[in-house]
């Protein structure tokens, strides 16, 4: 997989993504936004937080808020277990963690392979997806972190 996509790198920018699963759909996030991937651990809940904010965890001394990606994307929230993972990513100056069901692989994709996401209906869950990439028989959805977290519309996480 990795090899065959690499070959197309000729005529433009090559992007690397990590693909992950949420609500039985495949999504992906740009690799250079991701700091690390950790196993799920119980969080400390935050009062008055929106439903998609699960709480905070201790990442080597830093207090990192954890977002339930499923609920943020409109899927029903699920009860996380040790088999689920947290993707720690950079969001501008902030660092946040995204709870996902699982991560699968690294995709190397040429820009031309990425299609703009078909606009079906403008709603919050839809703007989070900025494009789609077809892989064999399936399709993976590219997440735009800023759009998803509503960066620019302060405050980002808690309202």
């Amino acid at each position: 997989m990795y090899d065959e996509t690499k070959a197309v790198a000729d005529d433009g920018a090559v992007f690397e993504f990590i693909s992950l699963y949420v609500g039985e759909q495949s999504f992906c996030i740009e690799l250079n936004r991701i700091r690390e991937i950790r196993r799920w651990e119980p969080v400390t809940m935050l009062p008055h937080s929106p439903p998609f904010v699960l709480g905070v965890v201790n990442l080597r001394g830093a207090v990192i808020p954890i977002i339930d990606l499923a609920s943020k994307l409109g899927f029903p929230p699920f009860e996380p277990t040790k088999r689920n993972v947290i993707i720690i990513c950079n969001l501008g100056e902030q660092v946040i963690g995204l709870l996902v069901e699982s991560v699968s692989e690294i995709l190397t994709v040429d820009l031309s392979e990425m299609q703009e996401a078909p606009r079906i209906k403008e709603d919050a869950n839809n703007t989070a997806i900025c494009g789609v990439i077809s892989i064999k028989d399936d399709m993976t959805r590219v997440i735009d972190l800023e759009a998803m977290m509503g960066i620019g519309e302060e405050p980002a996480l808690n309202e």
Partner: protein
Amino acid sequence: MSGNSIRDIFFQECEDLSDALTDGLNEMADGTGDSETVNAVFRAVHSIKGSGGAFGLEDLVGFAHKFETVLDAVRSHELQADDNLMPILLRSGDVLIDLIEAARMETEINQEAVDTTLAALAEFLPDEDQEPEEEFSFQPMVLAIPDVAVSGAEEDTQAGFRISFTPARAFYEVGNDPLHLIAALGDLGSLEVIADLSQIPDDIDNSDWENGYLSWDIKLETPATDETVKAVFGFVEDLCTVSVHPMGTNGEVLRTTTPEAAVAAIPENGAGEPPSPEAPSKQDSEGDKSSGPPEDPAKTAAKPAKGPVKSPPSAAAREAKATLRVDLERVDRLINAVGELIINQSVIAQRIEDAGLGKSDDIQVDLEDYKHLAREIQEGVMAIRAQPVKPLFQRMARIVREVTAATGKKVQFVTVGEGTEVDKTLVERLSDPLTHMIRNAIDHGIEESETRVRAGKDPEGVIQLSAEHRSGNVLIEIMDDGAGLNRDRIKAIAVEKGIVAEDADLSVTEIDQLLFAPGFSTAKEVTNLSGRGVGMDVVKTAITSLGGRIGISSSPGQGSTFSITLPLTLAVMDGMVVTVADQTMVIPIASVSETIRPRKEDIFMLGVEHPVLQIRGEYIPIVDLGTALGHPARDIPLENRVFLLVRTEKISQCAIAVDGISDQRQVVIKSLEGDYGKITGISAATILGDGKIALIVDPDGIASAVSAAPMSQLPAQPSSPLTEPAHV
């Protein structure tokens, strides 16, 4: 070396010099100073003037010059630093520091203050506007010149100066170039420069290039005064050895003999003056040789020569106490890392305990060592941030001078414990509250002289500002010997402003606490000093936000004392670890005044959902911390909870109900705002021994969730800082 960095160094030096200046002036004012003190003050002003000139700060230099002239007269006993002169000297010190600050920030200065002070100084000037005769030579570090005492500016035949100049290692380290100084001298007249290469080691290739091996003997023919010449070196005077001697028309040093050396001359190409023909140049093919040690051929010629100028190592030895200027951010990063270390240590301890190893196991012993080391490192790192409160107190002395000048009251300001060290941030953030309280103390506390005399007191009031360490905290007290709090009036005002009910039966302490109520301001008329509508409540907010508390004690006719208790540092806090709805949380101990296990009969309901607690005949609202933080209400009856009595700004008192108290410990504060944002009722987070995050509760935020409290109907508290003029 950019102009900026030199400028920075200049202002850093000015800071040190300002400190020396203020210290000296205070000693003179106390009468504890001697002639050396006057000299020190003079030197400070002189150095500021000298360096200021290099940056073209004309206002600063002009003022410093007048100031210096008066100080010189004091030094030579022409003037007495008595009660007439001393206040003006103190004020001049203030103005000079203001001028430096204005130059640094590139802001406008209050020209009126400068002018009045200048005028006041001028009255003491021996001969106004006349350049004082330089009877003294300001030579802070003359070395190697046999006849130091010689300074005769009286010589009429004087045609210039003979300057010997030896940069120390530090001179090069901060990026100075002797060439610039020599060029600056060249601007004053014609130059003849001879470099002394005798100190250059044989093994030139392996020697330390930052060491100053060179010194210069400079003949300067100039009509300029000795002071102007010295001003050239003013900026680097700590970094080199300079002596300036008047020189006769024939080039001989007046009454000083310096053996001529076999030296190689360095032509002064930067000054635009022709090199001296007498000294043949051996290396003029090379461009910028004065900045680096010259090459081999010169060395052999110079070797057998003289040794009078020989000093660089002593420059370092002269420094009484070496200090290091470090970027604050680096220190903070270190503090963070150490905080992690402490957390990590407790995580490991917990793990080992969970593993079931016995107390006598070797690893426990090692762990104990680890713990001690970690604590030691933490204390050491915290000490880096610790600063004496002295500068803060000096600023307050200034406020006292300003306020007494404005009110015409006579006040003696006493400080105790200036050396007490507290966190740097505390020093900075205490400035506004203390200013406000000192103003209050003079404006409202100290009576007019006549009133004082009638009351059988000294006409001069006393305000004492003290600081000390007490059981892991810093205690700062502001004590005045004024009239004390007028409690009847305080209550009357509180009633008038609707803060308390007219028939309220208040204890003395409760009346005193009314001072801190929002919207309370006792000044009958708004004076431009303290009655600015932002009352003591803002002071209290400021202190509480630093994790401290404030208290008052006062007795009529005897005066009042305000005591501020503050934590030693802001990075670590004493907290009470509590459980609420299965979550562990931390409540700052500073805000908890009491913990209570309630009895059922003390809990009453106010309507359907507002419980109140009866304590010593008083009813205070109960806040369920769990519900306040959005957890669903639970069925644990209130009497099975633990109540924490907190005093907050919005409500005088309230009882916060938690499920249980598990521990009391120091916690490292972690901000939530960077990655998440602000949460009502939560001030920050911390990491517990098991690596889990616990949220730190903000009792004020929690208390504001209660709406039915008697004091919460007050006008909204102005959120303005102390300095902002406000609404009343």
